[in-house]
């Protein structure tokens, strides 16, 4: 899946940052973007809900309680219960932990690997670059979901494998982006002087090229988290999520869909909305980060 694209020159913010440094200026631009603050606030709220919520709102998410199955929302169960009697609100918190953790871990892994791949390819140039990028092209040509289905049908997924498999199909975007950056960075004087002073290619890539592509990388990582959460959900729907009693929003949602015609709306909409809200929030943050990192987009 591709991330929602750039906004043209849309950073409609007054330049009040003055002579402050790059990072401070980026931060202040970010905070002035109201949508970004809304997005960041939503992410923080969901993290609090998922991790602090269970400390306040105690529910049993391991033992079945079939006599309490599919209860409609009430005071005892604000979001009702599911088909085996788990409290839906409590499950939303626990399931959110798993969705967020898998999403963030997969995004970090993919970003780290993709950055390294792209930096090496762009720095090396020539034949190495061409060979490495054709590998990326070939993997991009295979639909991600097909590859995922294939990999998950070979081994029954657990959390670690799920993260690995999602990362395996998501590092291509960052690799392409960073390679593009590296192509221009390697001709800069400071990279050349590192080489002149006797620094090896490893040092040039790790200490100079990769860090300088950090803006692009951070922005892309944010979109990656959003995409990874959606991918987990898609896999759950296709029956290749994490097996119960572990829960994530995707599993809850695809499970609830079986009861579409029974009118058990509380099994469908809460996890569905949670996914939509978190993914929108991460995309808003990513959009704003891009605006604040990309100097060219700033209003002059």
């Amino acid at each position, binding site marked *: 899946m*591709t991330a929602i694209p750039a906004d*043209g020159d849309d950073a409609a913010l007054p330049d009040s940052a003055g002579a402050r440094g790059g990072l401070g200026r980026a931060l202040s631009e970010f905070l002035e973007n109201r949508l970004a603050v809304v997005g960041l606030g939503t992410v923080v709220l969901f993290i609090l809900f998922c991790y602090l919520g269970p400390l306040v709102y105690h529910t049993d998410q391991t033992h079945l309680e079939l006599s309490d199955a599919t209860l409609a929302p009430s005071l005892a169960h604000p979001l009702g219960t599911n088909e085996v009697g788990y409290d839906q609100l409590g499950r939303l918190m626990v399931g959110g932990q798993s969705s967020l953790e898998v999403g963030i871990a997969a995004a970090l892994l993919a970003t780290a690997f993709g950055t390294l791949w792209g930096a090496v390819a762009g720095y090396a140039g020539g034949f190495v670059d061409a060979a490495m990028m054709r590998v990326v*092209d070939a993997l991009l040509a295979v*639909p991600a979901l097909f590859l995922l289905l294939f990999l998950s049908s*070979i081994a029954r997924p657990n959390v670690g494998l799920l993260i690995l498999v999602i990362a395996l199909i998501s590092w291509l975007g960052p690799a392409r982006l960073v390679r593009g950056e590296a192509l221009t960075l390697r001709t800069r004087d400071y990279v050349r002087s590192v080489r002149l002073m006797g620094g090896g290619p490893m040092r040039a890539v790790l200490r100079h090229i990769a860090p300088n592509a950090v803006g692009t990388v951070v922005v892309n990582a944010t979109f990656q988290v959003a995409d990874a959460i959606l991918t987990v*959900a898609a896999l759950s729907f296709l029956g290749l999520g994490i097996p119960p009693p572990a829960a994530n929003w995707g599993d809850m949602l695809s499970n609830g869909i079986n009861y579409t015609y029974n009118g058990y709306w509380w099994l469908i909409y809460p996890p569905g909305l949670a*996914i*939509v809200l978190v993914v929108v929030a991460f995309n808003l943050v990513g959009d704003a980060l891009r605006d604040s990192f990309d100097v060219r987009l700033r209003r002059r």
Partner: protein
Amino acid sequence: MTGFIARRLAQSIVVVLLVTVIVFILLHLLPGGPARAQLGPRVTAVAIANFNHEMGYDRSVPVQYWTWLTQLATGNLGFSVKLNQSVLSLIGERLPKTLILTILSTVFALIVAIPLGVVQAVRRNRAADYAITFWAFVFYATPPFFLGVVLIVVFSVYLPILPAEAPQSSSLGVILLQPAGLILPVLTLGLLTIAQFSRYMRSSVIENLAEDYVRTARAKGAGERTVLVRHVLRNSLIPVATLLGLSLPAIFSGALITEAVFNFPGMGDLFWTAAQTQDYPIMLGITVLVGLATVIGSLLADLAYAALDPRVRFA
């Protein structure tokens, strides 16, 4: 231009070969190898050895790859023992249905997304722009199966005006005679595509509006409408055409989910069923085919781009 075409063509051939290598590696990643995948988990060691010898799996890996590749080149995508049918004929049955779904939804998405993007760019940072952006973000963030179910609940349960299931017939003609059943699947897949394309169109138009040729056209007295339609729209469509070539895999992934939601007997459905029954020849055949389609699609898009925009050729 000839040099550019030759270079892109050579690259594409390399990429296609790499796709076959990836699929070949996947084939060999299978636990117990292809023999166990075809003959089942309880097969004896002797049967596996016989099968491997018969199929040539006991030969060296490069030889196997070459044999497999030459078979691919002659159109032999493998054989599904479980369905007792060649993968090519299975795909031949299902492909037209998936094409109907993807083509209809992509055309629908383009018809909606292009004007939306133009409106957003022209009314940038005003109410209409924000409203469309909001919905684009929401649809982009909605898992396709959730969107499909919400549409089913609204249009098939509360307002029972549309069927919740796609036409089940195996004949293409019958499916086209029941257009009502196609509306919800096309809408599901289309809304997701609109969300992406309208964003691209918006930034593309915004970039073009700032170009000098727009100022020139205005200075020559062209009306705002002429400037938009004759100059800006045409140039803005170029990157969107490229994007179309690149989004083929994403559209196929979306089709897979949509077909599963609406029980639509297309290629995605075939792939999903194959994944559940571990029918690997089908999965590998479809993967190779879609990979090939994507490479050709992005090659055509690039060539069209170069033909329309000379700057690309000389970059």
